[in-house]
């Protein structure tokens, strides 16, 4: 009896250690296959790829994957595993362990600099890669640049090289409003919009505690952001463009002082739309369903309004955002991964994506089709796009600008204290331009 107990204990300790060791070795020696089982010979090459896309896109992606295999199935033995990874968090997951990340993944265009800096993206427009694209997809990177919107291509380009395939051009914001309450004149300027909202006991919501949204005011007034060669961010918001930075801040402070203005947190906009207290909201296509059900028959969308800076009416700018599909530079099958990325972003599949998911295409031919033009949200987005800026910034941009937006949203500085506003701007710029670490 006593021995049996000891044996049991021994066995338990053994299995514990063995299972633990099993986990360890499983994760450590996964990247051993770098031998080239070359094509050329008669046998079909075995290709296993992983594809990451948004949870909501899985069904449409599966269709694209099926058609990809149907297209290339006789050239290689292809198996593709689909995974769900939101475009907004793709960077965090990929950079956490780039060797374990998917071969092909979709991501929002503002993540491209960090991904390229970390060496996670395969360069597309090289001569060698063009050979592959030409041999299989009958096109080169030049065709891809020509077929997609200019902004989308420049968002996919870092240091003059193309690093990703443009997938959609709808990652920007504009104004949704309730046309049963507001007239077209009301939504032309922020002042009129807020006055009308107050008269109707409704509110106007916008996110300010995010450098993606609050840049709207600064881009509108001629300010810029950019990326330096060393990876730091260039920003001029504390100086003067068409107006001084202080004047822009005073314009924002006048808006946030209005009781009809509701500064919603980043990600809280959808809840606020659903709450029914809004008559207008600054958001993007992802809230189209929420807005149309909240505003009912009055559902309408248009470009952003103007706002008052130093007595003038200034059109609010916006960030023209895109969704891109990138190829993992650590993929074992870079060539086939590139072909897959090209496939799911080509004209037919952008059309399919719009039909099934109402996602705004970056492909020029699809974007100019009648169906896309008739979509309310996408029409507003394209009206705003002439004021859109491709936001190219480094990792230190986000926290300081979010905090700065929160200060303005909460009236954290006095509107008439120009020195305090300037000091806050300077501090924000110091944080944004600090070296990346």
């Amino acid at each position, binding site marked *: 009896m006593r021995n049996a107990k*000891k044996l049991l204990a*021994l066995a338990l*300790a053994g299995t*514990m*250690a063995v299972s633990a060791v099993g986990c*360890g070795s499983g994760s450590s020696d996964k990247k051993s296959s*770098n031998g*080239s089982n*070359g*094509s050329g010979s008669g046998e079909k*090459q075995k290709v296993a790829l992983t594809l990451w896309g948004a949870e909501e896109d899985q069904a449409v992606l599966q269709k694209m994957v099926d058609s990809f295999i149907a297209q290339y199935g006789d050239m290689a033995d292809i198996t593709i595993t689909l995974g769900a990874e939101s475009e907004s968090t793709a960077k*965090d997951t990929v*950079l956490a362990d*780039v*060797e374990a990340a998917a071969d092909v993944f979709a991501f929002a265009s503002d993540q491209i600099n*960090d991904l390229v*800096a*970390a*060496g996670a993206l395969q360069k597309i427009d*090289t001569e*060698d*890669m063009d*050979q*592959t694209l030409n*041999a299989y997809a009958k096109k080169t990177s030049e065709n891809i640049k020509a077929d997609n919107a200019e902004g989308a291509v420049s968002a996919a380009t870092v240091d003059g090289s193309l690093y990703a395939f443009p997938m959609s051009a709808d990652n920007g914001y504009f104004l949704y409003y309730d046309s049963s309450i507001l007239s077209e004149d009301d939504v032309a300027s922020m002042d009129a919009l807020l006055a009308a909202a107050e008269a109707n006991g409704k509110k106007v919501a916008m996110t300010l*505690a995010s450098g993606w949204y609050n840049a709207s005011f600064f881009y509108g007034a001629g300010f810029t952001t950019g990326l330096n060669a060393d*990876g730091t961010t260039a920003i001029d918001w504390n100086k003067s463009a068409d107006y001084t930075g202080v004047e822009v801040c005073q314009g924002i402070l006048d808006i946030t002082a209005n009781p009809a203005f*509701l*500064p*919603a*947190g*980043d*990600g*809280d906009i959808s809840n606020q739309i659903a*709450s029914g*207290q809004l008559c207008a909201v600054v958001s993007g296509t992802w809230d189209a369903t929420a807005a149309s059900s909240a505003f009912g028959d009055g559902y309408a969308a248009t470009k952003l309004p103007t706002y008052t800076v130093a007595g003038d009416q200034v059109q609010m700018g916006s960030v023209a955002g895109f969704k891109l599909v990138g190829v993992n*530079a*650590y*993929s*074992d099958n*870079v*060539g*086939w991964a590139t072909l897959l990325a090209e496939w799911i972003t080509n004209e037919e599949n952008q059309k399919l994506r719009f039909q099934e998911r109402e996602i705004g295409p970056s492909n020029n031919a699809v974007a100019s089709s009648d169906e896309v033009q008739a979509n309310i949200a996408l029409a507003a987005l394209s009206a705003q796009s002439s004021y859109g800026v491709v936001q190219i910034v480094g*990792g*230190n941009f986000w*926290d*300081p600008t*979010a*905090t*700065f*937006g*929160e200060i303005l949203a*909460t*009236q*954290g500085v006095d509107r008439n204290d120009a020195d305090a506003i300037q000091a*806050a701007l300077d*501090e924000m710029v110091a*944080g944004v331009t*600090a070296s990346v*670490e």
Partner: protein
Amino acid sequence: MAVVNFFKNFGKAVAKGDIWVKLSLLWTGSGYAGRKQYVRALLSTILEAMILIFSIGFAPQYISKFDNLGDVQKEAKYNPITMKNEVNDYDNSFLILLMSVIILVVWFASILWWMNNVIRAYELQKMKQNGKHINSFMEDCKDMLNHSFHKTLLTLPIIGIILFTVVPILVMVFIAFTNYDQQHLSPTHLFTWVSLDNFKRLGSFGNNAYFGYTFRKILLWTFIWSFFATATNYIGGILMALLINNKKTRAPRLWRTLFIITIAVPQFVSLLLVRNFFANHGIANAFFEGIGFTSWLKEAGFITTNYIPFLSQPGWAHVMIILINIWVGVPYQMLIATGVLMNIPTELQESARIDGATSRQVFWSITMPYMFVVTGPQLVTDFVRNINNFNVIFLLTETVYKTTNQKMANAKGAETDLLVTWLFSLTQENYNYKMASAIGIVIFIISAIFTLLAFTRVNSAEREEMFS
């Protein structure tokens, strides 16, 4: 003492050992072979050979690069014929660091084993000289299952602890002395040693010393939070237990069950609900706006916003977090206090009452001292646990709280962050592993100091006897 004795024994064995013992310095099996323990000799020799093969065949490729963690950067070129990338033989700084740590641990263990082996050989020599029985291999095996069974049982868990706890902690400690951050992300880029730079930045003062400033602010709040979170829950729990256990309370079981329900609901759910409840435009704000309290606060100058910033501005958020923590934490403390209260010998209280003590006197002179003695160690662990209380802070402030302190924002911190949540955002959102590791070491030191201090001072086991 044990360490000193170990070295003394080793020295003695080397000095006084016969030829077999001296030979075992080179050939570990010789000490056994000389006493006719051939199987043991064979096993020792195999282990020695394995260590040598490991040290010569495997270790050099990593340990030789340990001084600068590699210097060959990754370069890849696409080959259109194979449709694959051709990659050079690049150095992976993280892998070099990890493997080097494992190698150093193995070497350290090997040296201990080698020294122990010499000592053992000398013991065998003495046993032989004294004419004692020397075990055969089968007898050794039986011994491992009987007399020395604890050794057999502990071997695998100890290996597990070393591999999965000691090695990762050592790696983290080493990273604090490197420049492993977003600019130096493995495997594409290399990182290297920077000595104490990261710690200097945590302790730095001055205008642009964002990390130093943020570190001091967050450290202060961590202590304030930890003190109040522990104290309020402790006192609240005891009061609640007393209230429910009072003879005049009706349906005590009902009340107890009601409070335990807050434990039954996962914190993820309850805290996120409360967070939405107190959001800038949540239910609580709608209510206070409806009764005109919000506009009164604004006129009185307490707030500058059109809502009450329960969880979105410093001060407000700090107080709210502590209050909400009372709500989620008190039921646990109540359960523990109930158990302890029931354990107080009733004769103590009764004799006190007979002597004419009031209820209050009984509470302060008997109940509370007893509680303190019994729950003292738990109070300390609670304090340390609250220093690292990630859940409450993260779930209540994540995405809701945006700092308006620009210096803190420049270091990716916020007023409501604890050291541990700051560490989380540094690694998860900013890949700043070097600073996160430095902060991790600081957290470890703080936790260790408090635990050691408290457990040496609060010695409940001895003092409990005063009561019985």
